[in-house]
């Protein structure tokens, strides 16, 4: 087998999950993360913090989907190892975020996320919202 440039054979395989933006998906996301995080050598309190940070972002997206009563909204969750830690993203394709005034709930959720991970970037676009988080593990 040949070495792929940039591939780290010690690192975990990236995680990518796509699910409908409904409440029942939240437990599925946690189940995936609970089995993926140990493959990235993340356990215990750090794993619990990441579960909550991702859960909060996903929950916000689901709530907006339910309230917006828009069908076919999807969530995409990704997790991968970086040079210094973990990058986690929660993306939805709901379109009701175009008005910034509708994002009050995200204010509280993002404060919590910022307490749990090192960087949080929330990018609302007309096509949906992407929440990118980074947790430093090897500072």
């Amino acid at each position, binding site marked *: 087998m040949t070495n792929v440039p940039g591939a780290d054979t010690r690192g975990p395989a990236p995680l990518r999950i796509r699910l409908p933006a409904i*409440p029942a998906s*939240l*437990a599925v996301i946690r189940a995936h993360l609970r089995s993926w995080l140990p493959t990235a050598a993340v356990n215990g309190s750090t794993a*619990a913090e990441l579960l909550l940070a991702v859960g909060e972002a996903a*929950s916000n997206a689901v*709530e907006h989907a339910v309230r917006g009563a828009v069908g076919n909204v999807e969530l995409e969750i990704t997790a991968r190892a970086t040079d210094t830690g973990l990058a986690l993203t929660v993306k939805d394709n709901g379109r009701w975020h175009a008005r910034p005034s509708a994002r009050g709930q995200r204010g*509280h959720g993002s*404060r*919590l996320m910022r*307490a749990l991970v090192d960087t949080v970037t929330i990018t609302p676009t007309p096509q949906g919202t992407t929440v990118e988080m980074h947790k430093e593990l090897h500072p």
Partner: protein
Amino acid sequence: MTNSQFRMSAAEAEQPPVVIATGDIDLANVNEFQDVLTSAAADSDAITVDLSDVTYCDSAAVRALFAVAATTKLGLIVPATGTIMTLLTISGLDRVATVTTRD
């Protein structure tokens, strides 16, 4: 239908009712949690909610607890370490409820 994930313990004399929650609480089951809190609070001016065995909860549970704290004296029993304490302090729930930690 009984709900074993959220249940009220048998009332002890002179003590507020205790709601014991276990497992994961999220948007999918927070309404059941809220219902148990509401019925416990209906019979008493104070309730205690034991979150010691909760394996996951987020802002959805915090909102349910804030709602019951608006009308009832709320006591919380939480693990000494972990994300529940973070949730309580970030949300400010620790300022409207009496928090007891359990190792």
